[in-house]
């Protein structure tokens, strides 16, 4: 026989955790769809547990009904391991192999298979066949050959047959039925003589007592096992009383294989009158079991529980007191326990010595003496009566008013405040994203119900955290706010913008402010109208308040098919006046609709950035006569002085004697039409320029400049004309003289 290497306590603990995660994930997968958060979380836990249990090596686990086998060695049958074994065994699995690359998808596939009804899987040829067809190569499955197993079991362990009679016994125990038929009683006698059969029965009656998340309900499980034991002892006491001691020993041995937490519940609970109910005499199950526990068994129970909990509890002390009431035995067992613990990693931790002292003290000093003072006891004793008497009298008005703090609206608001506070206080990076999502979900619900007051409070908290340097929730809050802007609740609320009363609209605007530019996506549709509606005005105000950050959100509107949508986009971009808006505005200059062109020019004129002028310049250069005229007309249409800097930049950056000649002339004409003094220096500078071999162009340029100056008509402009007439070059002097004096009146 090959030598078996014992599993280290650390490895055992990680395997136990893996076993627990596997069962929990399987149950979770059976309850919820694969993309449900509960399943995702459980798969993540399972993957993490697998990594810890298997490290980087392939992990092969054999499965028996009672335990898992690793490297030919059965693992000690603690709760999770035994539970996982039974669970996998029920699914006909004989061996599981996890390769190092068994990751989330592989585990999801495995859980999907395990979540199926085993009968359905059997119809498909069993789990191994089903896995071969649709599984993942990172996990291998071998299945049980049932014909052989059942044959063996029938021959070797007749008491453990899981036949109809067995199921009837399990159901009778679960239902706490007192009357059993003769066949059942005979089978119970049979089971009472076989430790493994008793342990099987205990596992089967415990199995249904689980919470929705798959965790064991220890009290119910313990009660079920005790009920099963009552049946066994009862029938033996009546039919074969001479076997009582032997059966009690069997029960104790079977009990030792159970989850120690269940054993604690069994031994710590009240000694029910179960024996009496079965018509038998003798000490109760609890006492009998306790008596059947030898020192080693008790020490093992203590050591396992202490290692799991890291401390002694009053409950453990009570059970220990039940099993070992006399102090010498207590001390004997504790010495053994300490020795057992010292071999575990828990026993080797630095704080173990301190913990052991307190554990030992509690376990040794436990007794049934009164715990609190007698006057506290008396105070409590009459409190209920006094409460009733006080309730029957009048409750003072100020206290009655306090009851209103429990009203529906207040509790709802308190819950909102709580969530906001939790967000602000959060220091755990792992919990932060989920918390931010929860807060955003709350905001969504509040928006859906029109509770904008609270929605503002909640979104403000998200916004503050999203901007707080160093906050662990910062990124999560930013993402949550962006996501909130895309939710149906927000889109729906934005859709009602025009219908809101001013107060509500003010709150909603503030909420949008907290959410940030992402909110613009749901608001831009209000700008797809010609008239200035309430909705458009509100949406424009909100989007405008984002400034440059909103520009990219307007690209759709800027390219919309309706001219008024584009015009509104241009107007808004002009209001924002950020250089980022230039690329959206420039194409509008080339469009066919003069209203859009005009709005775009206006907008570009509002942008104090060379890029804006350059955009106009580029279009002027590229456009043909009509189009250029349209742009120029747009520039001068409203005689808006804001366009002057744009025109000056065009002048400054143009080549007046080259290809830009016509643009420069148009620009000078435009400057003249606007008639703003600010342009005089640029026009004057241009006027004095000249070039050989371009006499015609020089003349046209100087003529246009002089006309522009005259049209401006300010004293600076007239001074420039006079200066040109008196000191300009010959051509300029002549043209200026020809221009004559300013007309008056």
């Amino acid at each position, binding site marked *: 026989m090959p030598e078996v290497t014992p599993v280290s306590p650390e490895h055992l603990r990680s395997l136990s955790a893996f076993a627990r995660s596997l069962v929990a994930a399987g149950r979770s997968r059976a309850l919820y*769809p694969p993309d449900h958060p509960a399943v995702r979380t459980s798969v993540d836990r399972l993957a993490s547990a697998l990594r810890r249990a298997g490290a980087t090596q392939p992990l092969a686990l054999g499965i028996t009904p009672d335990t898992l086998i690793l490297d030919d060695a059965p693992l000690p049958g603690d709760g999770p391991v035994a539970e996982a074994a039974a669970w996998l065994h029920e699914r006909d699995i004989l061996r599981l192999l996890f390769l190092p690359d068994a990751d989330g998808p592989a585990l999801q596939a495995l859980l999907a298979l395990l979540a199926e009804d085993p009968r359905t899987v059997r119809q498909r040829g069993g789990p191994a066949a089903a896995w071969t067809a649709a599984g993942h190569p990172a996990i291998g499955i071998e299945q049980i050959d049932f014909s052989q197993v059942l044959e063996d079991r029938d021959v070797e362990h007749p008491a453990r047959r899981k036949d109809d009679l067995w199921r009837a016994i399990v159901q009778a125990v679960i239902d706490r039925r007192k009357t059993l038929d003769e066949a059942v009683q005979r089978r119970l006698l049979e089971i009472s003589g076989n430790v493994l059969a008793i342990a099987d029965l205990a596992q089967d009656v415990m199995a249904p007592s689980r*919470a929705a998340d798959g965790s064991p309900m220890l*009290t119910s499980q313990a009660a079920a096992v005790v009920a099963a034991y009552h049946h066994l002892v009862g029938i033996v006491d009546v039919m074969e009383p001479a076997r009582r001691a032997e059966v009690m020993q069997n029960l104790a041995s079977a009990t030792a294989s159970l989850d120690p937490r269940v054993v604690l*519940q069994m031994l*710590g609970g*009240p000694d029910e009158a179960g024996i009496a109910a079965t018509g038998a005499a003798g000490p109760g199950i609890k006492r009998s079991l306790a008596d059947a526990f030898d020192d080693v068994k008790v020490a093992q129970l203590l050591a396992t529980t202490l290692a799991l909990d890291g*401390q002694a509890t*009053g*409950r453990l002390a009570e059970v220990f007191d039940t099993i070992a009431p006399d102090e010498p035995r207590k001390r004997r067992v504790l010495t053994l326990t300490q020795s057992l613990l010292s071999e575990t990693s828990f026993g080797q931790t630095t704080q173990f010595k*301190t*913990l052991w002292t307190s554990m030992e003290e509690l376990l040794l000093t*436990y007794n*049934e003496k*009164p*715990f*609190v*003072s007698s*006057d*506290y006891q008396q*105070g*409590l*004793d*009459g*409190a*209920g*009566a*006094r*409460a009733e008497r006080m*309730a029957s009298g009048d*409750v*003072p008005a100020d206290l*009655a008013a*306090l*009851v209103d*703090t*429990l009203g*529906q609206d207040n*509790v*709802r608001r*308190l*819950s909102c*405040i*709580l*969530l906001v*506070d*939790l967000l602000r*206080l959060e220091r755990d990076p792992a919990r932060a994203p989920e918390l931010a999502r929860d807060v955003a*979900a*709350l905001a*969504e*619900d509040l928006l*859906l*119900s*029109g*509770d904008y007051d609270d929605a503002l409070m909640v979104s403000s908290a998200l916004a503050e955290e999203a901007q707080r340097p160093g906050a662990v929730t910062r990124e999560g809050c930013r993402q949550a706010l962006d996501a909130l802007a895309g939710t149906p609740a927000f889109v*729906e*609320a934005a*859709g*009602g913008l025009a*219908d809101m009363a001013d107060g509500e609209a003010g709150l909603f605007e503030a909420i949008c402010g907290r959410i940030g530019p992402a909110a613009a996506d749901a608001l831009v549709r209000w700008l797809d109208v010609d008239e200035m509606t309430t909705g458009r005005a509100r949406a424009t105000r909100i989007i405008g308040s984002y400034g440059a950050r909103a520009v990219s959100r307007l690209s759709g509107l800027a390219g919309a098919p309706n001219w008024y949508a584009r015009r509104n986009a241009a107007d808004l971009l002009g209001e924002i006046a950020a250089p980022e808006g230039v690329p959206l505005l420039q194409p509008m200059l080339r469009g066919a609709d003069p209203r859009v062109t005009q709005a775009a020019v206006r907008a570009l004129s509002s942008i104090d950035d060379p890029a804006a002028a350059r955009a106009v310049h580029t279009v002027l250069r590229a456009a043909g006569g009509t189009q250029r005229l349209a742009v120029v007309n747009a520039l001068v249409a409203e005689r808006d002085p804001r366009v002057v800097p744009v025109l000056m930049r065009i002048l400054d950056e143009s080549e007046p004697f080259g290809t830009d000649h016509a643009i420069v002339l148009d620009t000078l004409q435009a400057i003249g039409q606007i008639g703003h003094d600010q342009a005089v220096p640029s026009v004057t500078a241009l006027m004095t320029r000249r070039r050989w071999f371009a006499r015609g162009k020089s003349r046209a340029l100087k003529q246009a400049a002089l006309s522009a100056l005259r049209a401006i008509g300010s004293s600076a402009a007239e001074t420039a004309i006079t200066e040109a007439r008196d000191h300009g070059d010959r051509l300029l002097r002549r043209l200026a003289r020809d221009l004559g004096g300013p007309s008056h009146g």
Partner: protein
Amino acid sequence: MADTSRHEQHAELVRRLAAAVRGASLYTPEHPIIQRGADALAGLCQRALVDQEALVIGLIGDEVVVNGERLLRSATALVGFVRDLQEREIEKVTIARGVTRDEIRAFVFELADRRAAIPLQTRLEQKGVRRVTIGRINVEQAEEESTGIAAARRIYGAAVETAESLWESAKAGDQPDPGAARRIIDSLAKMVSQDRTSLMALTALKRYDNYTFTHMVNVSVLAMAQARSLNLEGPLLREFGFAALMHDIGKVHTPLEVLNKPDKLTREEFDLMKQHVVDGAHILRRTPEMPALAPVVAFEHHLRQDLSGYPENIGHRDLNLCTQIVSIADVYDALRSKRIYRDGLPSDRIRAIMTEKDSPAFNTKLLRRFINLMGLFPVGTLVRLAGDEVAVVTHEHPGDPFRPQVKVLLDRLGAPIEQPGLVNTWEPDARGDFPSAVVEAVDPDSVNLDPLAYL
């Protein structure tokens, strides 16, 4: 329809219904938000009813079940909705195929109207709402607990065990089993309301010598007794019990050496200790079926009236009644109980600590009521006697602190007695009654007396 899609449809439907009811309490029926909400809800119902005869929304505990399928608890709005329906004892809403938008609208508005004197079902019928009905779910009644000491002992024992298992679940990172907690709260509430004398004394047994768990149960019992004295009952009383039972659950994450340290905590240790209110709120808000007040109370129970205490740096709120009551019970039981490193403090000392002048820790009136509830009458306390006389306690009875010796100062009409006489309230009359029994403590200001002047 795929299960996932159906699940989402049901979840959205309940969420919309909750939002619509909430909206109906904020806006008039004509408001566009309400119109839109009702339209959306009606549309969802009609779509869901294409291949289902009816939608049955059931409330079991704090769980929402639609057509037999449990929904995940989502946001606070839904929780508030569940609580609201529970308070009004509505456990089931059935929406039948063919339901119209008008019926949905009428139902939402009638449901939102909490002040109407006419029962909801009648109002729905009057409004012609035929395809939306409300009702109760038939749940098998648990076997009636027998009364008396044995039952009380069993209940208290089970409560401590449940507290322990809730604690252990939370410590393991799992969600505490609210079903188990509810069962035990139901039993404790019943005992507080009915079998008043036998239960409380059981807290005095060493048998349950684990402070953490006995404290959970004691605070729960004390909080429910206080709530009961304010004439609260039913689901609200149980909500107090629940919130009180779980108020310290965040300590599962507090290091043991800090939790059990007998000496004064260092600043760092105290910071760790303070974190339990935040952790507790997180655990409870993620636990399905947990009443809405439970995480709030876990978070707030170390706050004083002026919001000093901890957690610090929090938003403004008015402390709710449940938080205030649990705070009193928490401190009282902590001072009263024996710990490894000290005995329980005597009642007069506790009273002195808790009623410290100018202390903003507790609501003075609630505290006085609690003192009456607990029957704490140390020397110098002004008390009202069964005959309505006002007296000052001059001596405590060594064996019975609730029957002190008193000096009667005011007669039953409130008139001063010229020569105050001593009365031994422990002495029965010929019929065995106690005619001068102490009924309650009296605020000296309310009768304009300085009790110390008479000692």
